[in-house]
């Protein structure tokens, strides 16, 4: 929403897409996978924690 040209945010129903869940090692939900595996956040974390992981993953 802040930068639609650059950001795609997708909710994925883990059980309907088991191959994708397996690829990213989803064991608990919610799990956020950043840039196809460059970063991962497990659980519903505070916004600043998610931002920190996005910043870390974006450097890759």
């Amino acid at each position, binding site marked *: *929403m*802040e*930068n*639609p040209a*650059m*950001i*795609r*945010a*997708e*909710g*994925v*129903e*883990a*059980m*309907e*897409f088991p191959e*994708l*869940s397996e690829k*990213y090692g*989803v064991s608990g*939900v*919610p*799990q*956020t*996978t*950043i*840039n*196809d595996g460059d970063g991962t956040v497990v659980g519903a974390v505070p*916004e*600043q924690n998610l*931002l920190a992981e*996005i*910043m870390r993953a*974006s450097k890759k």
Partner: protein
Amino acid sequence: MPEKLLNDQIVGQIREAFVDLKEPVAILFFGSKENWEYCDDSRLLLEELVEIDERLSLTVYDIGSDIEVVKLYQIDKTPGIVIAALDGNQIIDFGIRYSGIPSGHEFSTLIQDILLVSGRDSGLTPQTRDFLKNLQKPLHLQVFVTPT
């Protein structure tokens, strides 16, 4: 009359939540013939949902034949849902997607997404907004969820 997926009680709750709706929202649905069972349920659910408020609209696409639209919205899964803003006749894509049947717990997430897009505001902190506005390369977030 075929049985509805959303009963009167749920429709009532949705109406209460939709009191906070502001601007129009366009929902784009992408289905496929291969997993029609999942897709039909999702499509029916969305059809019943958009009937509740005139600010919501739904367009249905087929991933196999609507190639241009599929490419434009980068859809690679079915059922696939795009929750976008509608400004006049123009669809404004915020990059918000949901892949799978939005049932159970995820139905409330869908309602929240609709409200967020309708308000045209992410609700994020200034620090997060700053970072996201200045991204130098694409960011793809996939939040894995389950309906329970």
